[in-house]
Structure formats: C-alpha cells, structure tokens
C-alpha cells in the first residue's frame, strides 16, 4: 500500500455535498451531547441529515476502556439523504480506545482528529494497547490532526473558578467548537442551549461557552486544518416547517395527539428500560396536556395499570423494550380477551434475554405478531423513521379505540435515538376519531359487535350498565362460558376483528416500476438504507423496486397482486428472517429471499447494494 505522506494537507477551502462525521470518546466524555448539538446546529442551518448514536449500555464503563467507548455518527448534506452514512469522512477520537475501536470504519484517506492529551502510557494500558497508535504506523494513510484537547481546554479556562476536574469536562465543547469551525457552522444554537441547560449554574454556562469558542478560534488561529469546508443548505427537502426529531420524542407526541383525537385521557403505565425510557420521561413532562403517567413497580404492573385505565375509560398505554414485552405477555392476553383498547410500544433492542440493550435489532416481530398463549391476535404497526413515528403512533391509537383491541407499535434503537429533520404536519389534516361510550342499557350485550367487529365500550360509573368482565372466556352477554361452540365463535370474532383492520389501512406505495425482476420489501428502521441502496443500483441501470411496510399485522390489502408482478422479493431485516417467515406463511405462492443481519448495527448501504447485485446476477 502506498503511504500518503501528508494526506489532505494541500486541500483548498471547498464546498462539500455531504460529510459523515463520527464523534467517539469515553462514555463520560459527552459524545452524545456533542453529536446532538452538531445535529441540531446542522438542522437549523438547513442541511438534510441522519444520525446514528452508538453507545454502551453501561453508564460509565471503566474510563478509557474499549467497552466504554461511546460514538455518535452524523451525515449532513446539501442533498436529500437517507442514512447516517456507511463510513465516516472524519473521526474525532477523544482517547486511544475510541481511536482503535472506530478507526476501521473510517474511509480510506479519511481525517482523524485525535486528542493527543489522552495518549499517555496509562491511557494506552486502559485501551489494552502495547504501542502508541499515534506513533506505530496505525494511522498511516489517514490525515491526522493532532490536538492536545485536554491541555487546550485548561488553557482556555485558566480564569474560570471551576475545579480542574470540572474544567476538563468542558473538552467536548472545545471539540465541538473545532468541528464547528471546520464545517463553518454557527455557534449560536449551542450557546443558547447551554444557557438553557445550565440556567441554574452560570459558571458552567460560561466555562462551556468559553471552551466552545476556544475550539472554534483554535481552528482559525492555529491553522490545524489547512482550510475550511462548507456543506450548503439543502434545497431538496419539501417546503414546510421543520424541526429535528428523534423517534421516541415523536412517539410521545403521537400518543398525546392520538389520545386527543380519540377524546380520551392518555394514561401511561411504564417501567424504565433502555431504549424506551425517554417515552416515559417525555410524557411525564407533558402533564399540562392532560397526560397521566405512572412509573410502576415492574413491566407487568405497567401494562396492568394501563389496562385498568382503559377499563375506566381512558386510553391505556405502556412502553417498553423486548424483555419487558416478554413480561407483559399474559396481560396482553387479558386485554385481548376482555377487548380493551391499549397501545403497547416496543422499542426493540438486540436480544435474546438482556441481549445488547443499546444496539439495534428487529427481532421482536414474531413475538409481536404471535407471542402469546392461545389464539391471541393483535394488530402490529412499525415505525420506520423518526419522521413517520408521530403519524403511525396516532394510527395505533385509532386502531386501538376503533377496534377495541391492544395494538403493538414497534420501533427500534436506531429510530429511538436517531434524529432527522421532520416536516411538521398540519394537525388539522388529521381526522379525529372520537370515542363514544355506550350509556344506553336497552338491549345492551357486553360482547355485541359493530360493523368493525368491535364491542361497545362502557365506562364504570354509568348507571344500569354494570358488567363483570375478565380473562375467562365469555359469551355474548358477558357471562363466563365454557361452551364449545361459544369458544369457537369468540375465537373467530377476535380473529376476524383484527383481520378487519386491513380495511382501514393504506396499501403501501411502490418506489419504482410496478413489475420487474426484484422487489426490495423492508420494514422498520432499514428504510433509509434500503432507499439509498435502491437509488445506488438504479444509477447503475438496474431495475429494482422497493416497498416498505408500516402495518405488518394484518398485512395491508393488495400485496398479493403487487408481489405477483415481481420474480423475486428480497426481504432485508435485522433478524434471522422473521418477516420472511410470516410472508411465506401468508403468501406461499411468492418467491421471498431473506437477507438478514444481526450484528447490533444497521445494514450498510454497500452491503445491501452488493446483495441486490448478487440476486440480480442470480
């Protein structure tokens, strides 16, 4: 391999279409904050963007070790982009562990900004390194920008009243300042944020702003980079008002909106679990929207409290991740049997068991669709991205109340913590779905059904309507029944009711021609990568179509007809082929080709492109 002597040193000031940057440091170094600030500033600047936070489950794994490395990748662009990027153009490494863990992902000839102040013998030892990677040739072929960030921060804060340890903690804002200079970003949004974040600690505001500005000025004064870059604002996003949005926040807002559209009080029962906890936290801050939240003693109590709230005539909601779903299973059966609305949110993470709590996977699909005792169908919906989570959460609420059923809304770690610009919807454009409680006892039967197959909802407190309900099988009157024909009939009713949800959901749109050799069929957070991959192969002349499912159970109508016009349907998913199994069970006449990955990391566009080409070449 040819050694590049001073790679990048002669680069002129230039405009770039897109940049992929990865911040990496110790989990105590504030890399997620740094990444989120860069994201927010770039969003306000007018770039399209996508992010991929990647952090350990441990809050503070031993400092300086490889398991303690926390990363945040962001792609920002003047063009419409769909992914956080496969390989970073620039890596910011705050310590040796962060450098060695992330270097392999960097583009050939990419730039490394490295905090040389954290490469002392003891730092190398913590990262299990015998030699200093700054000196042993590890970085040959990359453009290295060495900065002793540890020392520069203390220099900048020499007059600050903070203790040395607290001064050092400002190094992420120094680093952010450096990157703001390199990519010509304004500082104002971050300064405003710091004032808000530390409004009760003015000395911290002052120190962090100083560090931010010192980093920014260092880029200028010290000529570290031999030039500045600019990524112009995009003109490819549709007209509208935008804000930067993360998936869990969008779900929390969607729950408030969905409950309002149903005319109900949202009542959340939840138990903290990564990566779903921020839904509980956000909703707890929305009390002035009439939101009731209860942090319960465990996952089972959380769903049970939500079911109890629905029994009382509120919209019961519970939020969790895979292991919590496992615990809630029996209670879901109760809500299915008693036929109460309930919104169950699963922010999927890598499993089985505790698995990898902060890593992404889509492996709870079969659990969502089938994972209960008895024949216990529920509708299953999946968000694809932060910007569709709001609307899909509202739809989950709609289905729950219109069909008197629990609904499972799936998301995952990538959507939950990833961010992208969200074109704010016109709230007036949503059609409300107000619940009408039944109050007329005349001829009322507990399990009499409307045209959708839903039973009527009667609130306790309603005179002359007293009923007893529960998990034992009931007849149409609501009385316990072990009658053989009745059980068959009630099982059929529950099945048909969920199947009928298909009447109320749209057939997904096709991206590309409506017939051909290959259809890429995805669901969940792979949408950006699959869109990018399909665009890439089309540039090479391949005719490939793409479709993304948001409503997975029941399947939307019209799929069979669409599928029948393709020779093969490739199903990429971050599990061992769960959607493929369901598709083969429901529509065995089609040729489904699974494409699976379970590394705890999203697909790379290049991987999907290679697989598509491989399939097309047969």
């Amino acid at each position, binding site marked *: 391999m040819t050694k590049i002597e001073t790679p990048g040193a002669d680069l002129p000031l230039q405009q770039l279409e897109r940049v992929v940057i990865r911040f990496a440091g110790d989990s105590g170094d504030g890399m997620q904050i740094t990444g989120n600030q860069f994201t927010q500033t770039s969003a*306000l600047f007018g770039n399209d963007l996508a992010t991929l936070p990647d952090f350990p489950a441990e809050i503070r794994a031993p400092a300086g070790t490889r398991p303690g490395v926390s990363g945040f990748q962001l792609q920002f662009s003047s063009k419409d982009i769909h992914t956080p990027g496969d390989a970073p153009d620039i890596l910011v490494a705050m310590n040796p562990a962060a450098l060695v863990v992330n270097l392999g992902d960097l583009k050939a000839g990419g730039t490394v900004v490295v905090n040389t102040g954290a490469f002392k013998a003891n730092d190398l030892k913590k990262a299990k390194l015998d030699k200093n990677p700054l000196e042993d040739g590890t970085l040959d072929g990359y453009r290295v920008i060495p900065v002793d960030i540890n020392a520069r921060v203390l220099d900048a804060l020499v007059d600050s009243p903070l203790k040395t340890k607290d001064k050092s903690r400002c190094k992420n804002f120094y680093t952010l300042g450096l990157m703001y200079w390199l990519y010509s970003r304004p500082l104002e949004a971050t300064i405003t944020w710091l004032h808000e974040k530390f409004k009760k600690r003015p000395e911290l505001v002052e120190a962090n702003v100083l560090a931010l500005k010192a980093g920014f000025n260092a880029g200028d004064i010290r000529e570290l980079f031999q030039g500045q870059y600019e990524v112009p604002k995009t*003109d490819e996003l*549709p007209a509208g008002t*935008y*804000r930067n949005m993360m998936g869990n926040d969008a779900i929390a807002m969607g729950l408030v909106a969905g409950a309002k559209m149903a005319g109900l009080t949202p009542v959340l029962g939840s138990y903290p679990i990564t990566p779903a906890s921020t839904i509980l936290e956000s909703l707890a801050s929305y009390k002035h929207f009439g939101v*009731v939240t209860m942090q319960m003693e465990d996952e089972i*109590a959380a769903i*049970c409290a939500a079911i*109890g709230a629905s029994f009382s005539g509120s919209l019961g909601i519970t939020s969790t991740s895979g292991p919590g779903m496992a615990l809630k299973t029996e209670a879901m059966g109760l809500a299915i049997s008693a036929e109460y609305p309930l919104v169950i949110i699963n922010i999927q993470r890598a499993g089985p068991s505790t698995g990898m709590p902060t890593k992404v996977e889509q492996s709870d699909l079969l659990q969502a669709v089938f994972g209960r005792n008895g024949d216990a169908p529920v509708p299953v919906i999946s968000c694809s991205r932060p910007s569709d989570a709001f609307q899909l959460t509202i739809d989950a609420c709609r289905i729950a109340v219109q069909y008197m059923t629990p609904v499972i809304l799936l998301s995952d770690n990538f959507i939950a913590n990833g961010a992208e610009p969200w074109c704010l919807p016109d709230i007036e454009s949503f059609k409300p779905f107000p619940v009408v409680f039944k109050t007329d006892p005349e001829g009322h039967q507990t399990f009499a059904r409307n045209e959708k197959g839903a039973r009527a909802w009667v609130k306790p407190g309603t005179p002359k309507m*007293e009923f007893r309900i529960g998990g034992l099988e009931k007849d149409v009157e609501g009385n316990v029944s072990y009658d053989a024909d009745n059980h068959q009939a009630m099982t059929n009713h529950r099945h048909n009711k969920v199947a009928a949800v298909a009447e109320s959901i749209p057939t997904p749109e096709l991206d590309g021609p409506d017939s051909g050799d290959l259809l890429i069929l995805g669901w969940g957070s792979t949408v950006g990568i699959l869109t990018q991959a399909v665009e890439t192969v089309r540039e090479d002349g391949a005719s490939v179509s793409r479709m993304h499912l948001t409503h997975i159970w029941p399947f939307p109508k019209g799929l069979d007809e669409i599928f029948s016009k393709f020779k093969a349907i490739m199903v990429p998913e971050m599990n061992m082929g769960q959607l493929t199994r369901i598709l083969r069970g429901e529509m065995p006449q089609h040729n489904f080709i699974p494409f699976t990955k379970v590394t705890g990391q999203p697909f790379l566009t290049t991987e999907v492109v290679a697989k598509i080409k491989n399939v097309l070449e047969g």
Partner: protein
Amino acid sequence: MTDTATTTLTKKDFVSDQEVRWCPGCGDYAILAAMQKYMADSGADPANTVFVSGIGCSSRFPYYMNTYGFHTIHGRAPAIATGVKVANPDLSVWIVTGDGDALSIGGNHLAHILRRNLNVNILLFNNEIYGLTKGQYSPTSPVGTKKKSTPLGSVDRPFNPIAFALGCNATFVARSVDTDAKHLTRILAAADAHQGTSFIEILQNCVIFNKDFYNKVVDRSVRADMTVDLIPGEKIVYGADKDKGLRFTASGLDTCGVDDAEVWDPSTATVSQAFAIAQLDTDPDTPKPLGIFRAVDAQIYDESVREQVQDAVSTKGEGKIEDLVYSGDRWTVG
C-alpha cells in the same frame, strides 16, 4: 342529581344474576353476603363501585356482585386497580384476593400498592391453602404443612399478612373472620371510610382442602381466649370475662390485668407497636389479634397523580397538539 329521595337499595340489588359456584360450606359465601349487605346498608352506588380481582377461588367474587367487576390475571389485581382508580378517582374500588394471589405471585404488587397508598380497599381471603389448584400449601401455610406438593411437609416459613402490610407502611391494616358477620361488617365500614389503601385480612375457611384450619383460634369454644379484638378507643382486653389485657413494655408487649391494659388507638400507635401485636400470631399460647391494627392518614397516590396534572394544566394552560408539535427550534424550507 335532583333533590328527590334516592331509591334505597337492598342487599338483593347487589346480588348479580350469576350462579355462585364456590364449594358448599366455603367461607366465601359468608363474606359475599356480608359485603352485599354492607353495600346496601352503606348506601353504595352499584354503578360507581368496582370489584377487581386476580385469580383463585376468592377472585371469582366480582362475578357475584351486581357492580362493575374485573376478574383479571394472577396476582395483578393491585396493578390493574391502580390504573382503574387513577383513571377515575371517583370510583369506589375494592380488590378481592387470596393468600396465594396476593402474597405469592402478586407479592410485589401488594407491597407497592400499600406503599403508594392508593385509595382502594383490599380484602385478602386467607385460608392458608391453594384451593383452585386443588390443595397445595400457600405462602401463609405453617411450616410442616403436608399437602400434595409437600408430602414431607413444607419447609418454608409463612408470611404473616398483617406484618407484611405493616412492613409496607400500609395506612389501614385490619383482620376479621368470615363467620363473624358483625365484626366483618364493622371492619368493612372502617376500611371504606379510610382514605388510602385499606388492607383487610379475612380468615376464611376452605372446607375442602384446609377445613377448619382456624378453629384453634376462632371456634366458639376457644375464641374468647384465643383472639383479641383491637377496637379503636377501647382497652385491649380478651377472655370470656374480658379479664385479660395487653400492654406495651420497653421490650414489646406483655399480658396484664384489665386495669393496666392499653387503650388502643390505631391512628397514633407506632408501626412497631402494631407490629408487636401482629407478632402474637407466632405464639400458639397467645391470642390471635383481630380488628384494626393501623389507621393513619398519608398522602394518597391517585389524588396526588391527578393533582399534578391539574396543577400543570392550571399553571401552564391546557396544551394543544399544535403547541406540542410546533415547539422547539424550527426552520422553514421553501
């Protein structure tokens, strides 16, 4: 509401149209009858009353009450009731559970509902046996209980439900007996009046799998000497002639004459005093305490949860969806 006289309901109005399916002679019948009568006598509104239960013989109770009822899943009634009550604090909510439902599979939820002080009433039917699964020992069965799953005798120490509740800082703790309708009704009324979680252990006879297990304390021939009733404002005395008493000492509790007997006040007694009385259970020679162990006021969970929402609405104004979505840093394209 109009000011015309409301119809007076009778016990029959609280009897549902369901055929009661407990075993003949089961203690549950007496408790059900006492409850139906209490509801009528206390002027309860069936439409505003909810019985929530878990799983077990006792948990069939809601089917037989002509009120709203939710027969849920094993051990989870306290959690379900928490949602029911928080979503509508105007409802009068009663939880019916058993020793297995409340203290084995649902022990966690029982602990937490008592800790939170949700404004509901809990009736724990304790027959020291699993009935619905046909006679295995329960978490309240004494050590050495020989049943189908413990042919050589159980080896785990039992819970004392009263001590459990006191340990959870419950605000109302009482004990009664299925066969004593008068006593039970008095306790139901006190529990109903109490604001916060009212916990009542009801000693209940399982005539099939643990027949008359409690006769050594509640049988008429021994009851006066083997039980002591904790009545607020009265001296703690027992015996056929009410000639024996209890008093607190530095080391706990001691028997004494009537003159020295403590005047019982469950609203001022410390938890440790109530706990000391509860521990009388462990000594077969001392009377088993019945009545009200504790009745104190404390912050009520459902009220506080709703107050926070109301306060937020009145301070910040009622939020609209638009305010939520169109907030934070925004930018415009086009």
